[in-house]
């Protein structure tokens, strides 16, 4: 399977199953399209030479090049991985990542919060140290030979349970050496409770921090309000700037959410850049279709254009020596994930779980609070074997809609939670998300092609 598209002066041909990316001229673009459609080669020579006013020999040479690439396994590659995906997720029962919901409460009252202001549709609660410690022990005990173990402090707002976060990090540091493990911590925060003590500890111990900011003041303050109805922008931005300045070259992301109210979201990304932030992420809102801020079909062309504007501007900034990073455009063509990862997906419900303040296990943070998806707990492990099987069997091949999609090895079937919320089961697809995803990948690859020329 191949995918061809033209963007910003680049003609790009993706060979789905080899992962190859070709940048071609107009004539080759048409030759490849004609060969893909099964047109007779003599006809291709006649048609293309006429269209471009080129000698027939020129077209024949191009056809020969395409045959050579095919022989090298870089074009028109057949699916060599068929049937592999279902087996992969049954190879191992190791767990390598936990999302610790250390605080099911929040000091902000953001209107669009999928976690219902941190409560995840349940009671407000803080995770105790004992529960967190057991979660870390559970992870280490079930991680097999995996060395890198990821733990995300999440909420609600995790800084509302800061002492427990610190104690858990220090506990992990005690046990990781003897166990030959390496805990990588991430903290996701709204910034309200940041101070120098928190910043210094995070900069020493957190592998990554995710800082929630939606961009321009009016955009941010519209939805990210406190319980008194006041926007949070002016209180958090100086703290985030201070945090990032002290962080040096350690990993962080400014993470925003865009909604129907700011479909011109590149202005928000550029605003973040103007504030001095360079590592940026901006996600489409996840919500019910009827919500006032929900993205609509009419928004799609606008969003597509925004992703193109973003790619173009990132290229300009890179050329000027002031690059910014956009999470969804971070694609390493030569050192990206292996085929196992691309077929298996994110690992929710198999190698990645969310842990509630009470120690219950859910497939991921987006399922927390939905009792149907309770998988077990950190003392007894995964006890809902039917659900475990369902997640183990969920992969890029389990979704019929993905069969002919060129992006299938870039998204591996997509987010199980989005699929469930959009289509009623984890093997459905979230078509709106697919459309945005495909556009992002097209832009990301175009950007790679352009960067290769710098």
């Amino acid at each position, binding site marked *: 399977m191949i995918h061809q598209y033209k963007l910003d002066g680049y003609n790009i041909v993706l060979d789905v*199953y*080899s*992962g190859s990316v*070709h*940048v*071609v*001229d107009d*004539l*080759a673009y048409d030759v490849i399209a004609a060969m893909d459609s099964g047109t007779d080669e003599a006809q291709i020579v006649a048609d293309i030479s006429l269209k471009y006013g080129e000698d027939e020999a020129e077209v024949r040479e*191009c056809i020969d090049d*395409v045959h050579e690439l095919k022989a090298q*396994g870089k074009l028109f590659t057949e699916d060599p*991985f068929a049937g592999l995906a279902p087996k*992969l997720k049954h190879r191992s029962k*190791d767990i*390598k*990542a936990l*999302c610790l919901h250390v605080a099911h409460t929040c000091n902000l009252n953001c209107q669009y919060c999928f976690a219902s202001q941190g409560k995840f549709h349940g009671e407000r609660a803080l995770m105790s140290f004992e529960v967190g410690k057991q979660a870390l022990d559970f992870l280490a005990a079930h991680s097999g030979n995996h060395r*890198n173990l*990821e733990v*995300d402090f999440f909420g609600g707002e995790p800084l509302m349970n800061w002492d427990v976060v610190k104690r858990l990090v220090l506990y992990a540091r005690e046990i990781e050496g003897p166990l030959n493990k390496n805990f*990588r911590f*991430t903290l*996701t925060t709204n910034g309200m409770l940041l101070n120098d003590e928190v910043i210094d500890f995070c900069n020493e111990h957190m592998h990554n921090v*995710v800082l929630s900011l939606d961009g321009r003041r009016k955009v941010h303050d519209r939805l990210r309000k406190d319980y008194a109805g006041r926007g949070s922008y002016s209180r958090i931005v100086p703290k985030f700037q201070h945090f990032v300045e002290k962080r040096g070259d350690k990993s962080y992301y400014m*993470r925003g959410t865009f909604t129907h109210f700011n479909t011109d979201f590149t202005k928000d990304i550029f605003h973040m850049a103007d504030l001095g932030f360079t590592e940026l*992420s901006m*996600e*489409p809102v*996840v919500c019910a279709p009827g919500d006032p801020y929900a993205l609509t079909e009419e928004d799609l062309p606008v969003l597509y254009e925004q992703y193109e504007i973003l790619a173009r501007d990132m290229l300009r900034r890179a050329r000027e020596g002031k690059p910014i990073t956009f*999470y*969804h455009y971070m*694609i*390493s*063509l*030569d050192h*990206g*994930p*292996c*085929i*196992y*990862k*691309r077929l298996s*997906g*994110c690992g*929710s419900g198999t*190698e*990645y779980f969310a842990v509630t303040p009470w120690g219950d296990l859910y497939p*991921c943070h987006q399922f927390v609070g939905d009792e149907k998806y309770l998988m077990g707990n950190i003392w007894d492990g995964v006890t809902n074997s039917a659900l475990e099987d369902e997640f183990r069997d969920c992969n890029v091949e389990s979704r019929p809609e993905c069969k002919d999609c060129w992006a299938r*090895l*870039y*998204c591996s079937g997509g*987010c199980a939670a*989005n699929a469930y919320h959009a289509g009623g089961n984890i093997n459905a697809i979230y078509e709106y*998300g697919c459309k945005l*995803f495909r556009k992002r*990948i097209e832009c*990301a690859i175009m950007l*790679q*092609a352009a960067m290769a020329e710098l």
Partner: protein
Amino acid sequence: MKRIKTLQTKDLKNSAKNGGCGECQTSCQSACKTSCGVANQKCENKKG
């Protein structure tokens, strides 16, 4: 090739031989939290 420039990419078929160590980051643990995209994860296996 005159009309076709091929970018340096990972050979996915080859990665089936040496890949699968699982040391790479879990997709949702980095920045998105709401949409899976495995393509932007970095491989942590030098052989992969």
